[in-house]
C-alpha cells in the first residue's frame, strides 16, 4: 500500500533563510505521525507547503502514491488534506454551521446547503463522538470546542489526511485527553493524522512514528516504540539536553510577598482575579498553573504594579504597599522585578537596539548616564557582559531586538531583571517560544536564583515547566485559586482537575 503522503526533496527559502532543505517525509496510511523540532526548524513551513499556503521552490508531493500539484488550500482540500491550525481559522461571529459551510456552501443560496451540512455534521458527531451545538456562535464556544469545529470543518470537506499544528497548546489536560481519544478514533476509521508538537510526552503517548526536524532538515524518522524523550530531544537540538533540571531540597525562608483578598478587574470592567490570597517566601518557587486566560496574566500584572487591584492588600517584606505606591516604578525600587509574559509587547521594544531594550525600566541608573543623558558606551559594555554571562547569540548589543530568536530575546529580558538583584522575581511564561536548549539554561538560572534566596512567582501554561521548577503549585481557574499542592505530592491528572475548576478533593 502506498503511503498517504510522500514529500520528496522539498526546498523552500524565504530570502536568505533556507526554511526547508531537501526534506523527505513518508507518512503511512492509517497512522498517527508526529513531527517534532525546535521553533524555526521548518515544521510549520513544511506543513504550509503541504496545505498549499506556500509553494515549494522545488520538490514533489505525492498523495496516496500519485504526484499532485498543490498551489492553494483548495488543491490541498481536493487532494483530501485538512489542516487544524494552531491559531484557529474560524470566523467568531458566525455559527458552527456557517463556519463549516464556508468554502463548501453547496449553491448560491445558503438554505439548500445548510440542510446537507446539518445532516453531515450529525453523522460525524455520532461517528466520532464529537458532541457540539451546531447553532452556537463560534466565538462563544470554549477553546476545546472551537478546535472540534476546526476538525469538523476538515472532515466535512472530505479530509482523509488531517494535519494538526500544536493542537494542545491551548487545551486543558482533560481537553487534550479528549482530543487524543478522537485522534485515535480517526485513526481506527482509516484516517491519517500528522501531529506537529513540541511536547515530547504527547509524541510518546499517541504517535506510531515520529520525524524530527532541525534547522530546516529532516534529521530522523523513528518508530515511537523504539525511541525515548531524551533521544528525541537530542535529535532536535543536536546535543544532549536535560529535560528535567535537578534541584535540591531547600527550606523556604521568611515570607516576602503576601497578598490577601486580591481582586483585579480588566479595562473592560470584567472581574479577572477574584479574592486571591498567596504568599511567596524567600528561596522558593511558587508556580501558578492554569489554562491561558484564567486570570493569571492579570494577577501577574497587578503584582508587578501594572494594574491596581480593586480590592485587597499587598505586603512586601511585611510592609503594606499603599495605594499610591502601587506602580511598576515603586515595585522595582523595592526589589520586586518582573519578567513579563509577552516579551515582544511588554518585555522589550522590538525596534530598539538590544542595548536600549536592555535598560528599559532602569534608564535612571547613574552608571548608565549622566543626568538626563544616556551613556551609550556604558550601556553597550553593560549588555556585553550580560550577553557573555547568559550566552546570548549573537553577542551583539547593537543588533535590533527583533532580530534575536525568541530564546535569546528572553535571555536579554531575564538578564536585565535578574542582574538587578531582585528580592522577588515575577516570571510569566519564561519559555514560551523558546528552544529546548535555551529552556534548559533559563530553568537552571531560575533555580540558581531560588537557591540564592530569591522568592520566585512563576506563571506558565506549560504544566511540565510548573511541575519541574516549583516547590509549591497553585492552580487558577476563572480568576480564583482552586487548589494548592506541594510539587512532589501531585501529578498531572490532579492538577488538570484543579485547573478545570473541579473543587479541591483533598480539602
Amino acid at each position, binding site marked *: 500500500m502506498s503511503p498517504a503522503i510522500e514529500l520528496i526533496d522539498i526546498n523552500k527559502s524565504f530570502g536568505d533563510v533556507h526554511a526547508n532543505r531537501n526534506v523527505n517525509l513518508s507518512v503511512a496510511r492509517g497512522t498517527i505521525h508526529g513531527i517534532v523540532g525546535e521553533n524555526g526548524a521548518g515544521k510549520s513551513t513544511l506543513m504550509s507547503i503541504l496545505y498549499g499556503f506556500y509553494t515549494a521552490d522545488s520538490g514533489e508531493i505525492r498523495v496516496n502514491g500519485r504526484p499532485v500539484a498543490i498551489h492553494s488550500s*483548495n488543491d490541498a482540500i481536493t487532494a483530501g488534506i485538512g*489542516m487544524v*491550525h494552531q491559531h484557529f*481559522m474560524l470566523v467568531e461571529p*458566525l455559527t458552527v454551521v456557517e463556519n463549516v459551510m*464556508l*468554502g463548501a456552501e453547496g449553491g448560491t443560496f*445558503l*438554505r439548500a446547503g445548510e440542510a446537507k451540512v446539518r445532516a453531515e455534521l450529525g453523522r460525524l458527531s455520532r461517528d466520532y463522538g464529537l458532541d457540539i451545538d451546531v447553532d452556537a456562535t463560534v466565538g462563544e464556544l470554549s477553546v476545546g470546542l472551537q478546535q472540534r469545529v476546526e476538525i469538523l470543518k476538515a472532515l466535512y470537506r472530505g479530509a482523509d489526511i488531517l494535519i494538526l499544528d500544536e493542537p494542545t497548546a491551548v487545551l486543558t489536560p482533560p481537553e487534550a485527553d479528549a482530543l487524543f481519544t478522537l485522534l485515535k478514533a480517526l485513526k481506527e476509521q482509516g484516517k491519517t493524522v500528522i501531529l506537529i508538537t513540541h511536547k515530547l510526552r504527547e509524541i510518546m503517548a499517541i504517535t506510531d512514528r515520529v520525524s524530527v526536524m532541525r534547522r530546516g532538515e529532516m534529521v530522523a524518522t523513528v518508530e515511537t516504540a523504539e525511541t525515548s524523550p531524551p533521544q528525541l530531544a537530542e535529535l532536535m537540538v543536536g546535543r544532549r539536553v536535560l529535560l528535567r533540571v535537578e534541584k535540591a531540597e531547600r527550606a523556604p525562608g521568611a515570607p516576602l510577598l503576601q497578598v490577601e483578598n486580591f481582586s483585579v478587574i480588566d479595562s473592560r470592567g470584567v472581574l479577572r482575579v477574584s479574592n486571591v490570597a498567596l504568599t511567596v517566601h524567600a528561596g522558593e518557587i511558587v508556580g501558578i498553573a492554569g489554562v491561558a486566560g484564567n486570570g493569571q496574566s492579570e494577577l501577574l500584572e497587578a503584582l508587578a504594579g501594572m494594574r491596581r487591584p480593586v480590592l485587597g492588600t499587598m505586603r512586601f517584606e511585611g510592609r503594606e504597599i499603599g495605594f499610591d505606591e502601587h506602580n511598576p516604578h515603586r515595585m522595582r525600587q523595592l526589589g520586586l522585578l518582573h519578567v513579563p509574559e509577552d516579551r515582544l509587547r511588554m518585555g522589550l521594544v522590538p525596534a530598539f537596539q538590544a542595548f536600549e531594550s536592555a535598560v528599559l525600566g532602569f534608564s535612571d541608573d547613574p552608571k548608565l548616564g549622566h543626568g538626563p543623558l544616556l551613556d551609550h558606551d556604558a550601556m553597550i559594555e553593560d549588555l556585553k557582559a550580560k550577553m557573555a554571562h547568559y550566552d546570548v547569540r549573537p553577542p551583539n548589543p547593537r543588533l535590533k531586538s527583533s532580530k534575536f530568536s525568541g530564546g535569546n530575546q528572553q535571555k536579554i529580558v531575564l538578564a536585565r531583571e535578574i542582574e538587578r538583584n531582585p528580592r522577588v522575581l515575577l516570571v510569566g511564561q519564561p519559555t514560551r517560544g523558546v528552544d529546548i536548549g535555551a529552556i534548559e539554561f533559563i530553568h537552571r538560572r531560575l533555580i540558581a536564583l531560588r537557591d540564592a534566596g530569591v522568592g520566585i512567582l512563576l506563571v506558565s501554561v506549560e504544566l511540565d515547566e510548573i511541575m519541574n521548577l516549583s516547590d509549591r503549585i497553585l492552580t487558577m481557574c476563572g480568576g480564583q485559586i482552586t487548589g494548592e499542592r506541594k510539587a512532589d505530592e501531585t501529578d498531572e491528572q490532579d492538577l488538570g482537575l484543579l485547573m478545570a475548576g473541579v473543587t479541591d478533593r483533598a480539602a
Partner: protein
Amino acid sequence: MEFSTIYAVLDSALRLSIPLLAACLAGLWSERSGVVDIGLEGKMLVAAFAAAAAAHAFGSAWIGLMAGIGAAVAFSLIHGFASISQRGNQIVSGVAINLLAAGLTAIVGNAWYGQGGRTPPLEGAERFQDALFGHSAPVYFALLAVPVTWFVLARTRFGLRLRAVGENPAAVDTAGISVTGLRYSAVVICGVLCGLAGTYLSVGQSAGFLNNMTAGKGFIALAALIFAKWRAWPALGACFLFGLLDAVAIRLQGIALPGIGEVPVQAIQALPYLMTIILLAGVIGTAIPPRASGVPYVKER
C-alpha cells in the same frame, strides 16, 4: 403642528436621507469585507460631478447615472488597488481619494464650464423626474438596496464569504477562497452605491453640480454606519434619523422657538453634526466593527 407640516418634514427627511443611505450601504459593503472606506465623501463627489456633466452632455439623467457610477467605481478601484493589492494604509488612501475628488471636480468643472466649478443647470430629461409618490427612481433604488443588501449578506454564499473575510481573512484563505477577489467585489459594489448617492445629489435632488456639494455627507454616512453597527436595516433607520435632523433643521430656520427666541441659522445647521457626536458617544454603546477591517491581508508563516 399641523399634519401637513409633519408630512412635509417627513417627506423632506426621506429626500435628504437617500444620499446618506446609498453611501452608508456602500460603506457597509466595503467594511464588512474588511476594507475601511473613509473615501465615501470623495466618491460621492466625483459621481455627482460626472453625473451632472454627462446628463448635461447627453441630455439624459440615466446616462448621468451611468457616468456617476462609472466614476465612483473607478475611484473605488484606486482605493482597492492601494489597500488590497498594495496592502497600503486604508485611511491614508481614503483621505487621498477625498482630496483628489475635491480638487479634481473643482478644476475640471471650472475648465469645462467656466462657472466657478458649477455645471450648467440641468433641465427636463437631464434630471430625474418624479416617478412615484413624488419621488424619483434613484430614491427607490436606494431603498431597494436595503433588503437586497440584507438578503445577499445573510442568505447567500457570496454574503457568507464576504462576512467571513471581514472578520478573519485567513479562515477564508484556508477554506480555498480568494480574499483578494472577495474584497475587490465588495469595493466595486461600494463604488456602484456611491455612484448612486452622488448622482442623486446633482441630478435628482438638485439641478446640477455645485462645488463640494457633498458637504460632509460621506462622513455622516460613515457615522450612520457605525450607529447601525454595520447592518443593513438599522442603516436605514440611522440614515432616516440623520435625514430627519437635517429636515427639522431646515424647517426651524427663521422660526422663533418659545422661550428661546430665534435660533441662529448656524446653530441649527450644526444640529445634525452635534447629534452625530452625541449618538456615537453615548447612546448606542460599543459598536464593534468587523474584526479585520482596516487590516491588509498578509499570509503569515
